[in-house]
């Protein structure tokens, strides 16, 4: 059986090659379909069941192909990195170096990261034949200029390159990437339009695929519009396209690591940014203070000519300097007080030796001037004082005299008034004094204010001598009477010692008898020194009244009582009245 099979195979093999060769010439499509339906499942099965075997078998072919694509990709990557490295002295290089140091990520890794950071700045859809712009969208950062002009120029350049490529190669190929400096134009054609994406660096494979997907979706949707495009940019499709492209490029850029919206929140990055911001703010703040302090120093120098410095000592600012002129202390204080740093800046200023000498000299001069002025003032004062003295003293003397005079007048007036008062009340006061002094004296007669010794029976009948035992009582009363009258002496005309007799006997005899008795009585009184030397003595007079006024009791004369002594006084009414009139006239 096995031998038969081998024979059959041998025969078929001989003809199979001829059959296949003939079919390939006459009906290539039919042969392709026939073989595909058989070979494909067989290969699939073989790969599935004998993977390692198949890999070994295919590696020489596939490995070379894969290596080719990988090498191409690496080449493109290296070109990008080389471009970055070429920016050796650019700001970006130093930024990258700083970023690497701060973040701990190597510069190479950052370079690799940057190589994939292409951003789309603008997108144009251009009519392929005419090069007219159909629609466009661009970011705010792009600096495209007139989009219509750019579209036409880009179209012309693309056509030129395509034309050049076509003339040098058998296959028709189209330019896809145009680069100038950092900028790159990625061009993709489809149907009657092509799309140009303006990028800030070369797009990687993933990005190109993304753009192509977007472009494919646009072409699919607007194919009819593109084919019938008549150059009218007022068509609604133009605006729709513009909006779509704008949305796409914004969302695309946001997805990029350097886009405005990062995918994830990086606390270290933000911490670093905050730290740097704070540092920057602090440095700015310090610089501002440094600048302000310098300005303050300059202002002091401008206004005073003094050189001062503001130093920071343990967070406190001190304005230091040695001044040539003492008056500048005040000026500097004024400048400081007007500055916004009045409270923050302390002052530590001293005066130079020259300045001190100047100050002393100036103070000396000032003192001398003041002294001189004081002397002048003193002289003027003395002169004024003398003048005033000359003017005032006489007036003062006059005034004093007048005052004394007035005082005297007043006193005199008061005196006179008092005297007048006394005079007017003299009689009444005298009587009151007598009444008071002799209130308990039985010989005092209140009605007449006199002393009447009738009850004492002082004389015996026919006798001129008083009864001796009774005399002391009479003398005491008389002495007291004189004493009470003495203050009124000037106004008393006389004090009379009156003697009365009884009616018995001869009236003339009785008259003589009474005169003698009165005189004897006075003689007796004068034996008392107090009476004899009394100021009232000159006023004392005696008088015999005879039998004129006998004492009658119950219709009969009391003879013993009629022989009696009475003592009375008489006021000098003329004098009193005259004086009253005198004072009244003065008033």
């Amino acid at each position, binding site marked *: 059986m096995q031998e038969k099979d081998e024979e059959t195979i041998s025969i078929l093999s001989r003809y199979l090659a001829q059959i296949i060769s003939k079919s390939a010439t006459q009906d290539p499509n039919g042969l392709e379909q026939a073989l595909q339906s058989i070979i494909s499942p067989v290969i699939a099965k073989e790969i599935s069941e004998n993977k390692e075997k198949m890999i070994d078998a295919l590696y020489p072919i596939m490995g070379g192909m894969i290596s080719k694509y990988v090498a191409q990709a690496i080449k493109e990557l290296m070109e990008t990195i080389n471009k970055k490295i070429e920016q050796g002295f650019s700001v970006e290089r130093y930024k990258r170096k700083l970023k690497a140091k701060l973040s701990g990520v190597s510069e190479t890794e950052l370079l690799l990261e940057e190589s994939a950071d292409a951003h789309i700045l603008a997108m144009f859809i251009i*009519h*392929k*034949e*005419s*090069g*007219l*712009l159909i629609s466009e969208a661009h970011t705010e950062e792009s600096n495209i200029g*007139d989009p*219509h*002009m750019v579209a*036409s*120029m880009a179209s*012309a350049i693309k*056509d*030129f390159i*395509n*034309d050049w490529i076509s003339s040098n190669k058998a296959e028709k190929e189209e330019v896809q990437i145009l680069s100038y400096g950092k900028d790159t134009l990625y061009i993709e054609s489809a149907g009657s339009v092509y799309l140009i994406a303006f990028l800030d660096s070369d797009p990687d494979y993933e990005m190109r695929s993304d753009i192509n997907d977007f472009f494919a979706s646009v072409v699919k949707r607007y194919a009819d519009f593109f084919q019938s495009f*008549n*150059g*009218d*940019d*007022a068509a609604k499709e133009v605006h729709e396209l513009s909006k779509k492209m704008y949305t796409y490029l914004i969302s695309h850029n946001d997805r990029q690591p350097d886009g405005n919206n990062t995918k994830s929140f990086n606390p270290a990055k933000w911490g670093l940014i905050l730290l740097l911001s704070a540092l920057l703010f602090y440095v700015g703040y310090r610089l501002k203070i440094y600048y302000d302090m310098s300005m303050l120093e300059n202002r002091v120098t401008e206004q005073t000519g003094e050189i001062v410095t503001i130093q920071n000592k343990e967070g406190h600012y001190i304005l230091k300097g040695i001044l040539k002129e003492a008056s500048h202390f005040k000026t500097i204080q004024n400048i400081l007080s007007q500055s916004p740093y009045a409270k923050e800046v302390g002052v530590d200023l001293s005066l130079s030796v020259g300045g001190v000498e100047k100050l002393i000299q100036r103070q000396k001069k000032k003192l001398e001037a003041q002294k001189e002025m004081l002397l002048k003032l003193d002289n003027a004062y003395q002169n004024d004082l003398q003048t005033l003295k000359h003017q005032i003293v006489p007036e003062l003397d006059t005034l004093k005299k007048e005052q004394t005079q007035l005082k005297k007048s007043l006193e005199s007036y008061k005196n006179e008034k008092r005297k007048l008062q006394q005079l007017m009340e003299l009689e009444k006061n005298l009587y009151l004094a007598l009444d008071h002094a002799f209130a308990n004296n039985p010989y005092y007669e209140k009605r007449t204010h006199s002393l009447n010794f009738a009850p004492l029976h002082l004389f015996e009948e026919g006798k001129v001598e008083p009864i001796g035992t009774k005399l002391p009582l009479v003398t005491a009363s008389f002495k007291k009477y004189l004493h009470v009258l003495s203050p009124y002496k000037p106004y008393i005309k006389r004090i009379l010692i009156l003697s009365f007799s009884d009616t018995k006997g001869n009236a003339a005899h009785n008259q003589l008898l009474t005169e003698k008795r009165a005189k004897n009585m006075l003689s007796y009184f004068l034996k008392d020194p107090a009476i004899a030397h009394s100021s009232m003595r000159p006023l004392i007079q005696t008088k015999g009244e005879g039998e004129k006024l006998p004492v009658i009791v119950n219709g009969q004369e009391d003879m013993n009582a009629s022989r009696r002594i009475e003592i009375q006084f008489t006021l000098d009414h003329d004098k009193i009245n005259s004086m009253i009139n005198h004072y009244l006239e003065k008033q």
Partner: protein
Amino acid sequence: MISRKIVLIGDFATGKTSLIRRFVDNQFSDTYLSTIGVKISKKIIQLENTTLQGMIWDIEGGTETKPVNKTYLIGAHGAILVADGTRYETLEHIAMYRTLLHKNNAKTPFVLVINKCDCLSDEARHTITEKATSMYGDVVKNIFLTSAKTGEGVEEMFLTIASEMMGP
């Protein structure tokens, strides 16, 4: 606004760039300006009923050894074929440019311009106009004598091609 692509073709140094400068910027430079490749200019053209944005492609003048890049002609809505009035051969070459133009744009309207007419006498003007008419009268409606230097016929020529591009 409607945009249209206008191409200027003609032999080297026939004054195409100067014509565009005169039209676009209304200025003229006596310095001869040679075009390299293509230069794009833009002009807003106000017609009777509409406004047109003309994207004017100033295409490098052709020479015997270096023909005009035909790729630039594709998609043109209008064309200005420029000959130098002082060089008769440039008028003869117009036929070749027309063929090139219509190879891919069969219906593209065009005008024939005989430039540098300021250098021509009245008689020379008459002669060259007659020659142009006899050569191209059956294919072109409008033949203009222009001078980029003086501005003669420039504005009219551009307005005419703009109107023709917009159709009846």
